[in-house]
């Protein structure tokens, strides 16, 4: 994409204010804060705080806008699917930010599609959580996270409507193979340079696919510190559902451990809390398998960013860093995990 073709980045405070005044049926409305989230890179996340009046009644609200980068999403999952996951989970016992609406009209705020959810008060900051004097709160949050994970994995996903738009594994092997096919396709579609190490990971994952799974669950898909909101010592919302799917719950444990959730609470204690809360039996072998899977998945979501560098243009330096830093790190890690 050339610089001339690139759409203006960011959100316009005036347009967002005018749009929300209409959408929230307010008589007056002011955007008191508009801030882009630093961190998650799959899409843009904007925090919008407003105050206004309806009739004589003043109100405030805190909303979160999710929109693809001007060049598209980093993850090979469209925005509407992500919105549907939030919408399906909103009335369930799995705590998520309330999904409000999905928009496709670019004339509204200058970007589309986008969706809006209500911001959950609390923090996702690892920095605060890992402050030196916070050890006991970390342990309690680690335990609560494990219990929340059990709630995700025991959710009646059919009743929640998730089976209507997520691929349903018919055999135990499909829990991994359906997702692997999805990510491999996204990787190959970007026509990357030949990468023997990536082929090695794909090959190993296909040759070692688990043939047993205790139950097909909703899989959160990206579990870790930074991907949940906590308040005090309670986990009050789970975020980052873009890679959610139906499959093996052990994949979430692989993700959690890959991202260092055991820095909250030792893994054995997390497992114990999870099983005590009704979560499926822990299987270390499958967790190991999915640890390699996650390396491959990150390669597939990040490496294609590099295909957008070429004679037609370049992307922001954050994408160069992301497109190289994450995949090469994961290739190294994944290869080690399969014994090389």
């Amino acid at each position, binding site marked *: 994409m050339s610089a001339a073709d690139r759409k203006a980045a960011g959100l316009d405070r005036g347009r967002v204010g005018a749009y929300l005044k209409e959408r929230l049926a307010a008589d007056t409305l002011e955007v008191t804060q508009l801030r882009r989230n630093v961190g998650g890179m799959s899409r843009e996340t904007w925090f919008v705080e407003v105050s206004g009046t309806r009739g004589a009644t003043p109100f405030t609200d805190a909303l979160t806008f999710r929109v693809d980068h001007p060049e598209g999403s980093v993850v090979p999952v469209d925005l509407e699917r992500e919105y549907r996951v939030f919408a399906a989970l909103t009335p369930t016992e799995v705590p998520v930010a309330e999904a409000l609406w999905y928009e496709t009209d670019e004339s509204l705020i200058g970007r589309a599609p986008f969706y809006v959810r209500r911001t959950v008060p609390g923090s996702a900051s690892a920095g605060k959580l890992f402050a030196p004097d916070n050890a006991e709160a970390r342990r309690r949050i680690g335990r609560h996270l494990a219990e929340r994970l059990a709630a995700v994995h025991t959710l009646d996903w059919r009743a929640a409507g998730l089976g209507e738009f997520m691929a349903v594994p018919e055999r135990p092997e499909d829990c991994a193979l359906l997702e692997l096919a999805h990510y491999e396709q996204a990787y190959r579609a970007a026509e990357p340079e030949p990468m*023997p190490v990536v*082929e090695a990971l794909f090959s190993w994952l296909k040759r070692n696919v688990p043939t047993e799974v205790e139950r097909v669950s909703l899989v959160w898909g990206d579990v870790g*510190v930074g991907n949940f909101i906590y308040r005090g010592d309670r986990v009050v919302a789970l975020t980052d559902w873009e890679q959610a799917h139906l499959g093996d719950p052990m994949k979430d444990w692989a993700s959690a451990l890959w991202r260092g959730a055991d820095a909250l609470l030792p893994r054995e204690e997390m497992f114990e809390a999870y099983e005590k809360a009704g979560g499926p039996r822990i299987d270390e072998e499958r967790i190991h398998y999915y640890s390699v899977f996650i390396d491959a998945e990150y390669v597939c979501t990040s490496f294609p960013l590099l295909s957008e560098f070429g004679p037609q243009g370049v992307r922001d330096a954050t994408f160069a*860093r992301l497109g190289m830093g*994450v995949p090469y790190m994961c290739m190294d890690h994944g290869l080690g995990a399969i014994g*090389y």
Partner: protein
Amino acid sequence: MRPSPEELLDSLRLSLNETLLPKVEDRWARYVGTAMDLVLQHLKLRLAHEGDVLAEDDADMLAVLASLGTRAAALAEQDTAGTAPRWEELAGLVGAARTAEAGEHGATARNEELRGVVVAVMRWLDEADGADPAVEEMRDEVYRLVRRQVDRTRPLVEPLFMSFRPVAS
């Protein structure tokens, strides 16, 4: 021409880190600035070492492919019953690497061409999986090559690595 490319990269990093970034208050802009610094660190390493890495990588791949080709040709001769994997196919794949003229393309293109042959070999081995114990031995040889490749590249890209593990602020 002076300053050298390396010195110019150092100059850019100096300006970025000591003049620009301390004055940037917007968190997203700081994040982008930090990414720029990491890319500059990577570039410096790449300018200094990429040529050697590619040459070493090419030589390693050619040696492994030649070894696989020799073994595949011998196995093809031994297989009179025609029940084993089609070793002559593998020998043919490997032969493509030998016939490519070194120096015909740029170093990156040549390296990618050879990696493409390695990928083709890996796919062939996957298709022949279980048909002969030699397949697993050859795969092991290729995977050990892949580990060496990753180890060669790692020092160049390590500044860009991104930990997902939690850290205290």
